[in-house]
């Protein structure tokens, strides 16, 4: 059903594109939809373009995996609209014609401003495109059962057709359609979460109504002998160990043991064997693992005439208060040196995949096992209670001596009072043994992110271009207010979707980005199909806006100034369509390259680049009479270089290069706290230095 909805949505948006093609042949039609969009439609389109996969998939996943810290993105994303409404909306409309560089350049009319601002639009659009494309692949992969890169290619191709075909008119209606659907179905899902309430009684099935029985992970006694750990499991022997060491205290914060053990098997119809491993029933060939090229990771043994499969899997060590030890079963995926993949010690396949995770193990006693249907405030109150325990999915990845890449997934019990306040993703409190400089850097990283979110919204190019699709400054203001109301309501829903996802125990341990669709699947296939389809149109809506902005920047701002001559309207439209295709292709390549990163996290970077490059110029040209053309140009260029440069030198990128993140030249991941003030400073200093050389502005 999900595939049918997916195809329906694709046909619908392509039909819109074809229908609006005729209206996009003129420059006004292609770039600003003839400035004739009603403010109500524009407001919903604002919401549909702004509420990207970062908001829908990313935030829901972050709340489910990191609790309240995910909601911080919702707060920051919405708060930024205050700046957009009160400071930017109406002046932008009054000053500009087609693009944001137009508005910046109205006072000075210098090609340099238009070039710098056009370049900035292009860079920010590309930064914002990456997470959208990553999200597209994540979504389409399980939905259509195709590889991640095909998901990215399909989405990229559809968006290219939307933008190159119908320009701003089709982009507006795709965004309007998406905004309406997002609000409606996020609301429906929120109501479903409230009706389900919070319960510790395990849901009977996972992976939707047609899923498999839930599995209760084993916990067994373990005792340290003279040479090794003895484990209370049939035929068990410890064959490996991995510990995570706290880099500040040197203590082992997580200890994993690799246990070789016997599991009863039965002969299947093909002469091979099947065994129940964590509730799944993978197939084993008659011969042992060696003959199938898997090494000796599993073998078939006969004990008292009964067949057993011997596998090796990873268990987590728990030490009780009385000093006794227990091993708790985990899940894991191992990639062998020859590329073969094992899941939980057995060959990966349709019958053997990682299980979903999450769930609530304890709630306040007064509720027994379930709260039943609850009101919105009660749900959050129960979740934040100190006696509520959330089973938060965690994972750790490492290489074994044999060259396997192992990723172990386990549940970490967290008190509700901790889950529902800042700290799990952004460690703001000093940790034991942590140097004070580390605490300071953690705090600066957090402040930097919140600053970028607050200041970045009003400087995003795909938001700024929407001020030109309405007929007047009043309409620009009204449409911004509609956007704030819709977006604010949606972000309140994200809190319920996030806690609902972890409550449902339907989290994919390998990616937080799928949490919202999987929550929907826990309510049935219809809701899953609709939410997946809407998530797909969300990508289309945002990406089409971004490509539209990039297309305008190149064709309207960069091209005429680089060629140093006027370009005809027909050429501008043709150039816009060609650029849409090129930017779409670049987005596809980057979306494939950045697979695996959380989309909200990536969007945080895009906000930082936008706030650094565009906002100082926008604000000071509106409110500081001493701003000069040189100051504006320098601020934009320094903002881009500083923000992008600091991101490339950040710990997260260092890890992506395969280097030790602690040695990264930039000690924090979020650049805004340095690059935004720097951009302001450069504008002020350069303007003051060049003030006397500057001719009087053409108009106030």
């Amino acid at each position, binding site marked *: 059903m999900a595939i049918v909805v997916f195809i329906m949505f694709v046909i619908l948006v392509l039909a819109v594109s074809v229908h609006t093609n005729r209206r996009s042949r003129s420059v006004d039609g292609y770039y600003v939809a003839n400035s004739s969009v009603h403010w109500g439609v524009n407001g919903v389109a604002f919401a549909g373009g702004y509420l990207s996969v970062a908001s829908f998939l990313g935030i829901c996943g972050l709340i489910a995996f990191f609790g309240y810290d995910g909601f911080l993105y919702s707060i920051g994303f919405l708060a930024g609209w205050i700046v957009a409404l009160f*400071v930017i909306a109406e002046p932008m409309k009054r000053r500009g014609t087609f693009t944001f560089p137009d508005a910046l350049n109205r006072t000075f009319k210098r090609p340099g401003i238009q070039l710098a601002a056009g370049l900035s639009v292009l860079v920010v659009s590309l930064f914002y495109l990456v997470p959208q494309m990553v999200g597209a692949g994540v979504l389409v992969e399980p939905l259509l059962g195709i590889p991640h890169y095909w998901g990215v290619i399909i989405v990229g191709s559809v968006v290219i057709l939307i933008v190159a075909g119908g320009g701003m008119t089709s982009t507006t209606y795709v965004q309007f359609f998406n905004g309406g659907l997002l609000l409606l179905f996020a609301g429906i899902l929120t109501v479903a979460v409230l009706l389900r309430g919070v319960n510790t009684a395990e849901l009977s099935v996972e992976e939707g109504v047609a899923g498999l029985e839930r599995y209760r992970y084993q916990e067994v006694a373990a005792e340290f002998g003279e040479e090794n750990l003895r484990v209370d499991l049939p035929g068990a022997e410890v064959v490996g160990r991995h510990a995570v060491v706290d880099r500040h205290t040197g203590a082992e914060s997580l200890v994993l043991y690799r246990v070789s053990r016997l599991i009863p098997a039965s002969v299947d119809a093909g002469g091979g064997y099947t065994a129940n491993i964590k509730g799944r029933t993978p197939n084993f060939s008659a011969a042992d693992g060696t003959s199938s090229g898997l090494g000796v990771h599993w073998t078939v043994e006969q004990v008292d005439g009964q067949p057993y499969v011997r596998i090796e899997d990873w268990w987590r060590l728990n030490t009780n208060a009385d000093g006794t030890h227990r091993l708790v079963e985990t899940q894991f995926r191992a990639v062998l040196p020859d590329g073969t993949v094992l899941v939980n010690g057995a060959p990966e396949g349709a019958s053997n995949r990682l299980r979903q995770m999450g769930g609530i193990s304890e709630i306040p006693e007064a509720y027994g096992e379930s709260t039943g249907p609850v009101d919105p405030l009660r749900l959050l109150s129960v979740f934040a209670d100190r006696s509520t325990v959330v089973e938060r999915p965690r994972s750790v990845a490492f290489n074994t001596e044999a060259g396997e890449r192992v990723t172990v997934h386990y549940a970490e019990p967290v008190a509700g009072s901790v889950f529902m306040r800042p700290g799990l993703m952004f460690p703001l409190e000093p940790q034991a043994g942590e140097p004070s400089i580390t605490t300071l850097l953690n705090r600066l990283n957090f402040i930097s992110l919140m600053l970028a979110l607050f200041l970045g919204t009003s400087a995003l190019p795909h938001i700024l271009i929407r001020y030109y699709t309405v007929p007047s400054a009043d309409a620009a203001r009204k449409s911004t207010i509609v956007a704030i109301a819709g977006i604010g309501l949606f972000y309140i829903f994200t809190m319920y979707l996030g806690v609902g996802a972890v409550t449902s125990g339907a989290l994919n341990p390998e990616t937080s980005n799928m949490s919202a669709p999987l929550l929907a699947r826990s309510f049935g296939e219809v809701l899953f199909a609709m939410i997946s389809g809407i998530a797909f149109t969300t990508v289309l809506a945002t990406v089409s806006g971004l490509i539209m902005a990039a297309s305008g920047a190149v064709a309207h701002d960069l091209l005429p100034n680089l060629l140093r001559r006027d370009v005809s309207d027909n050429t501008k439209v043709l150039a816009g369509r060609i650029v849409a295709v090129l930017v779409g292709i670049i987005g596809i390549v980057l979306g494939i390259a950045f697979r695996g990163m959380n989309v909200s996290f990536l969007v945080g970077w895009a906000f930082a680049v936008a706030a650094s490059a565009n906002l100082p110029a926008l604000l000071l040209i509106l409110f500081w009479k001493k701003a000069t053309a040189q100051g504006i140009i320098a601020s934009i260029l320094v903002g881009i270089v500083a923000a992008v440069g600091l991101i490339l030198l950040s710990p997260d990128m260092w890890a992506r290069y395969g280097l030790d993140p602690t040695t990264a030249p930039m000690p924090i991941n979020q650049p805004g706290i340095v690059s935004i003030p720097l951009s302001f400073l450069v504008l002020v200093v350069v303007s003051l230095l060049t003030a006397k050389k500057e001719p009087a502005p053409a108009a106030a």
Partner: protein
Amino acid sequence: MAQNVIMDEAFERRKSGIGIRMTILYSIIYGGFVVLSVFQPTWMGARALLGLNLAVAYGLGLIVIAIIFALVYNHLCRVPATGAATRSRSASGPQAGQEEG
């Protein structure tokens, strides 16, 4: 006509002033949230309002306040009858910016 233009400019300045003041006020509320989260994260776990902890109450409050501020701003920015005609002429379509320039 000239009087209308002067009134419009005064009205735009008034709107701009309201917008800046409301932005500063909201920034202070938002800044308070960030400061509390950074320096007193444990306080954010304390019960605050309607059974919600401070983190949730403050976070949801920021969203609701943004919506209220937006509506108040719109109410304060309603076009005065005397200036309506001038403004609708000066900002109608993609050429609006050029005409003003």
